[in-house]
């Protein structure tokens, strides 16, 4: 009988973590649906980027208010995990505040956690006010309705509740309050429970303890369904982020082969095409669906926190055009999730569903509104590159469908015929010299 709580705890813990691992596997499988791309170069620069951008939050603080509040929540999250370790050990072995044996340092640690808990609570409340009362413009764009909007608020409520539970847990722990070490914040909450018997207090403390740890496990599993996934994926995403100059767009290798062949005077144009190795020729140029994108772009989509810094910097969006880089990322993720579910329900095989990323999610109007200015890429605090997806989809429109706007077709014809985007003769290129 004595061991029942411990066994119960182990079951809760294992199922909580087990369910999470199952979803992480699904996540990895979905990301691997993307095209392969070799990212093994420049390891040291990549570690540095991850350290600076994800761990060091260097791009978050470019917007000082949101950056500072985020920093508090982030540090709070990292540090409070030490407390979670204690809770897990206590839960499994039936101990109580097992780390307390380290003496006065324990008081310092718990004191720091309590202060952070209050700071996190305040920050999260301010975040809630920014979203729901001040109604910052970037949180009220057309893509931020229903789930994206609610998701953001649920996360904030969750964190408020978890922080409250942590403080109440400490406040109702008679033994801990008697120690009078580290109860720097909870000592002010403890009087709210004065007059209750020790048994009642113990009962509350145990109840809150259980709700707290179960809440943490529920939150862990909520990640997969939420933009909050960024707390994990920001790290690989900044590691695999683009290192080349922002203006550099990749040269499609398959096209290079074709062009080299066309330009090579030694190639016999009437020769039968050589047998191409399997997978040598891409199924199509550019991207019309998520499987045509590479896995880094799909990782980008799962990493997006929907903060909207990209969209608020986008010149097209600022001038009222349909394009929103954030929506590009959200659409990519939503479609990828849909494809993943399709695979799950069809025993591991994707069954054609008559839908694709292009048109069903992202419209041509959005794609053609982009000026490729890289403002979205610069703004993203976690190294997401929405521009690369826009370019891939334009490639599909132009090279597979010949569906560029008429004026762009004219421009391209001019380049083909005259070597300039305008209809001037190449022989007139030096005329300016004598004008």
């Amino acid at each position, binding site marked *: 009988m004595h061991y029942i709580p411990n066994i119960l705890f182990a079951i809760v813990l294992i199922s909580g973590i087990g369910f999470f691992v199952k979803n992480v596997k699904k996540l990895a499988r979905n990301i691997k649906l993307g095209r392969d791309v070799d990212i093994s170069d420049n390891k040291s620069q990549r570690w540095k980027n991850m350290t600076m951008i994800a761990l060091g939050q260097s791009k978050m603080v470019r917007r000082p208010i949101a950056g500072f509040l985020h920093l508090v929540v982030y540090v709070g999250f990292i540090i409070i995990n030490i407390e979670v370790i204690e809770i897990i050990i206590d839960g499994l072995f039936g101990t109580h505040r097992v780390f307390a044996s380290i003496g006065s340092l324990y008081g310092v640690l718990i004191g720091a956690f309590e202060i952070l808990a209050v700071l996190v609570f305040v920050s999260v409340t301010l975040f809630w006010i920014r979203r729901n009362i001040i109604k910052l413009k970037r949180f009220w764009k057309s893509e931020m309705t229903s789930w994206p909007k609610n998701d953001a608020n649920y996360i904030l409520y969750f964190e408020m509740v978890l922080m409250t539970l942590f403080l109440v847990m400490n406040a109702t722990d008679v033994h801990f309050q008697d120690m009078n070490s580290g109860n720097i914040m909870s000592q002010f909450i403890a009087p709210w429970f004065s007059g209750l018997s020790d048994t009642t207090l113990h009962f509350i403390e145990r109840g809150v303890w259980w709700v707290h740890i179960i809440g943490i496990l529920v939150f862990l599993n909520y990640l997969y369904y939420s933009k909050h996934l960024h707390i994990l994926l920001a790290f690989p995403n900044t590691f695999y982020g683009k290192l080349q*100059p922002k203006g550099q767009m990749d040269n499609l290798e398959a096209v290079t082969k074709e*062009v080299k062949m066309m330009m090579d005077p030694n190639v016999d144009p009437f020769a039968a095409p050589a047998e191409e190795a399997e997978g040598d020729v891409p199924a199509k140029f550019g991207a019309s669906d998520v499987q045509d994108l590479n896995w880094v772009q799909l990782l980008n989509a799962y990493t997006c926190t929907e903060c909207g810094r990209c969209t608020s910097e986008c010149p097209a969006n600022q*001038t009222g055009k349909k394009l929103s880089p954030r929506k590009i990322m959200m659409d990519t993720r939503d479609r990828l999730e849909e494809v993943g579910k399709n695979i799950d329900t069809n025993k591991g095989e994707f069954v054609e569903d008559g839908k694709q990323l292009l048109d069903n999610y992202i419209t041509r109007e959005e794609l053609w509104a982009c000026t490729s200015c890289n*403002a979205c890429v610069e703004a993203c605090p976690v190294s997401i590159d929405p521009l690369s997806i826009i*370019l891939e989809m334009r490639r599909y429109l132009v090279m597979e469908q010949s569906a560029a706007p008429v004026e762009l077709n004219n421009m391209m014809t001019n*380049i083909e015929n005259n070597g300039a985007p305008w209809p001037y003769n190449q022989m007139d290129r*030096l005329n*300016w010299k004598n004008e």
Partner: protein
Amino acid sequence: MSELLKVPTMAEFMAQGKQPEVLFWVGCAGSFDDRAKKITKAFVKLLNKANVEFAVLGTEESCTGDPAKRAGNEFLFQMQAVTNIEVLNAYEVKKIVTACPHCFNTIKNEYPELGGSYEVMHHTQFLKTLLDDGRLTIEGGQFKGKRITFHDPCYLGRANNVYEAPRALIQKLEAELVEMKNCRRNGLCCGAGGAQMFKDAEKGDKEVNVERTEQALETKPEIIAAGCPFCNTMMTDGVKAKEKEADVAVMDIAELVANAQDL
């Protein structure tokens, strides 16, 4: 003045068995657009003045393929790139300077993988080195004390991290450099990049170049300086749309430096 312009071609250098110090890549806008031609000429005047042995490709130059690539036509881009690279490599070109950030970005970043590796400089960077080496002197002249704001071209600034060279040149003019609300890495696009120059904008509340011009006008400038022929056109149109063309001039940095010395 124009008969004084010395504009040798690579073919002429080759005929004499010589190599120029640098190839001036003029670009399509610089070759054909009436407004941009003035920038080209201003830059050539400065090269002449500094006794830089340069050459142009002239009729052998062709579009770098930038607008085709960014519109999604990778085939056309690579055809252009490979053709240009063959010409450049045949002349054994080592160093290229251009007044167009789009040409700059494409040749610098996208040509190497296709077999064309050169040292590529934007004309503001090149002018800065001429200045630092004492081959060119800049004086304020007519721009002394004028309020000048600089519009960062996306393909020079954000795309390639070149922010300081153009600003250093403006400051050498003894002008008052005033920054817009969005500048350097937060600069706002002029609206022409990504092949937008060649098509109508998608429907919205306003044109991008008007928004950007409003930001520029907020600084109460006498001159809006640009470092890109496309930005120049977009900002000029924006100033016209705001009916400010009598008060505010849009000029390329090369024009500012050349005009300051009455070239």
